[in-house]
């Protein structure tokens, strides 16, 4: 395989892996901040326990998110140096600001939060977790600003053979960012919320620490339902923006080869044949694509064949059709997972409303437990659609993936890094799941015994050291 393909595999795999943890960090930070706020306001120690118990999972998850994030920053230069040269003027700034504004905030105050329980006042401690939550959100903002530039480049001019920034305000108010940021951050809140409801449901099924986990479940369910609805609304806005700015991605995610009729129906499933440029066995919901694209029940959507011709006119000869099957199915998986989250969330709220959480359905709680997998599925497929659907571009309309790769690296080097990063990530993933299960099994009231006295070698061998 060539360095382009290998570098793409590396970027895709390391980014997807990294993005299992980022939304959990963003979501859990908010939930923990809410729980600790309730502790400070009500003085009930159970809420403090909640912050600490979910905090334990947060920290394990945060560690993996942080270390896999370092690689993200370096591999632009390592594998995509020509990309970095071409857009560094625009793209580097948000990354630097992300580090300066968000990473310092997160890393410093997470230290204060972990180690500061009895060293700073309650309020300062509470402020630290809110600052961590703010930091994670700011970090999302600046990295999405950089990504939005790649989806919809604004605020630059091509000078000296590269893209040079000429309007930072245009970047900050990029239409793409204004739809992408809420969609992504709300999805992250939903991810944290469904993780907490899922684990709580499991514990409630086992009837362990019932009061603790019911309270956790209720807080998270409220956050979960609000953010799930929010994700859907923001997603709708994003789809409309997509039709305007990246119609090819929209057409590909619909498997739409020729221009649609007016009004356009939304394809639920289809058999896509990219070789013959045809989709068969389509099941459609009438009017739905028009609504998705324009918020009204009329209007036709351009197909890939039309767009291919238009792009060839604009950018010269080439294949501008992204991998259609991947784009099509990842979009549907995302929508299906998101819809299920809303259904589960609504039912959970109904149970709470009718005060039926005392004895909820066993089958429903099982659904809620497995529901913790829905947000990661939706997040991952959403990003696959977004990034694959942009091909062959790295920066839409400006630079192709082919041209972005480092010319001075060999496929052997990249193969080596792909294998080593995949191996270490696989280990990290397994260890993380194992530790999660261990912490969850122990429960919130057994946490302090990780270094139980009886296991402390200090008692056996070390007493002379401090006498």
């Amino acid at each position, binding site marked *: 395989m060539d360095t382009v393909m290998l570098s793409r595999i590396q970027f895709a795999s390391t980014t997807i892996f990294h993005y299992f943890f980022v939304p959990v960090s963003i979501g859990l930070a908010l939930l923990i901040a809410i729980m600790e706020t309730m502790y400070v306001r009500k003085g009930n120690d159970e809420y403090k326990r909640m912050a600490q118990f979910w905090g334990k999972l947060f920290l394990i998850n945060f560690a993996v998110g942080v270390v896999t994030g370092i690689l993200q920053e370096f591999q632009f230069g390592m594998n995509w140096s020509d990309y970095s040269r071409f857009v*560094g003027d625009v793209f*580097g700034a948000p990354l630097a600001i992300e580090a300066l504004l968000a990473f310092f905030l997160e890393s410093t105050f997470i230290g204060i939060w972990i180690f*500061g329980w009895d060293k700073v006042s309650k309020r300062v401690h509470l402020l630290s977790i809110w600052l961590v939550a703010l930091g994670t959100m700011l970090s999302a903002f600046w990295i999405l600003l950089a990504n939005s530039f790649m989806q919809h480049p604004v605020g630059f001019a091509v000078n000296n053979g590269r893209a040079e920034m000429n309007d930072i305000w245009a970047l900050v108010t990029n239409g793409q960012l204004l739809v992408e940021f809420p969609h992504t951050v709300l999805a992250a809140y939903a991810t944290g919320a469904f993780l907490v409801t899922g684990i709580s449901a499991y514990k409630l099924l086992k009837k362990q620490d019932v009061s603790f986990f019911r309270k956790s479940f209720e807080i998270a369910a409220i956050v979960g339902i609000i953010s799930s609805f929010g994700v859907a609304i923001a997603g709708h806005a994003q789809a409309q923006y997509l039709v305007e700015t990246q119609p090819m991605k929209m057409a590909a995610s619909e498997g739409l080869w020729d221009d649609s009729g007016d009004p356009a129906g939304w394809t639920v499933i289809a058999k896509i044949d990219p070789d013959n440029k045809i989709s068969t066995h389509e099941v459609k919901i009438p009017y739905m694509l028009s609504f998705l694209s324009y918020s009204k029940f009329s209007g036709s959507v351009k197909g890939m064949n039309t767009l291919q011709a238009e792009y060839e006119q604009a950018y010269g000869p080439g294949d501008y059709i992204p991998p259609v099957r991947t784009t099509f199915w990842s979009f549907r998986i995302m929508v299906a997972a998101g819809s299920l989250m809303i259904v589960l969330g609504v039912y959970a709220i109904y149970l709470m409303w009718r005060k039926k959480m005392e004895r909820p359905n066993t089958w429903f709680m099982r659904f809620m437990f497995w529901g913790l997998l829905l947000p990661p599925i939706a997040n991952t497929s959403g990003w696959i659609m977004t990034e694959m659907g942009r091909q062959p571009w790295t920066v839409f309309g400006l630079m192709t993936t082919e041209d972005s790769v480092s010319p001075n690296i060999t496929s052997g080097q990249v193969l080596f890094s792909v294998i080593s990063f995949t191996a*270490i990530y696989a280990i990290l993933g397994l260890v993380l799941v194992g530790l999660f299960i261990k912490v969850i099994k122990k429960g919130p009231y057994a946490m302090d015994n990780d270094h139980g006295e009886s296991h402390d*070698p*200090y008692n056996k061998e070390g007493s002379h050291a401090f006498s």
Partner: protein
Amino acid sequence: MLSLNELWFVLIAVLFVGFFFLEGFDFGVGMETQILAKNDTERRVLINSIGPFWDANEVWLITGAGAMFAAFPHWYATLFSGFYIPFVFALLALIARGVAFEFRGKRDSLAWQKTWDVCIFLGSFLPPFLLAVVFASFIKGLPIDGDMQMYAGFFDIVNVYTVVAGITVVLLCLVHGLMFTTLRTVGDLQERARKMAQKLLFPLAALLLAFVVMTYYMTDVFEQRGALLLVIVILGIAAYVLSGYFMSKKRDGLAFGMTGAVMALSVVSIFVGLFPRVMISSLDQAFNLTITNAASGHYSLKVMTIVALSLLPFVLGYQIWSYFVFHKRVHEKEHLEY
């Protein structure tokens, strides 16, 4: 008045000085877990002594690389693609180290702890070694062609000069870390840390001296900035001697400041030697990357300057405050988080 290009060169230098000064000591403490600690409790005391800080210290590196990307995209691109394999190893080490702190105490199994202890050691030893190798080869010069592409073979990167630099910085981190340990621990551990630092002073001095001599003969930096570098070397020697003096007087805070100063001056000397180049081509002077031809446009630099100068006071403020919050010594009898 500094031009924006010069200002960003200085800011990046400051970020790397900050990184080596701060993460330098937590790398050192990471190494101590295998060299100095006698048992698991001591290991935990050491890890907890850097617990609240190491993550933020590492952000100095991330910010430094980010600033390079934003202000000098060609520098960033040439550097990271050119040193592909060393950075793969540095990243693997940093990844393993970062999770090891969080993971090692989460299970009561000896094999489990030993595994993560190895990760902490390698993760604390490899990154400073590899980064020092990279920085040393900066001033030695690298095969960079007219398209700013670097095609380096193994011996362009790994040679006597760069390896000496690597070992020197690793040892400097260790001594700096030992002095940090004297500040954050009590009793026997503190005593042993100070003694070990004192023992290492002579070998480290020899290495530092060897590096300076080699730099004189093997690079052009003394021709370029002889006077200024001489001042730095003299200041460095003074700080070094003072660190030894303060160690012997058990003035640990001052000694820590001095080992930090030696570290800072070493990094500064590299940047002084480079300026106004950012990467030196061994093929042709004309292919050098400089603060002009590697830089972003004026508008970008201006925006970045405004952002950086408005944020830096806050960043520095709360980081200093966090050191104040955790100024008390770590005691084995209290709750140890890790």
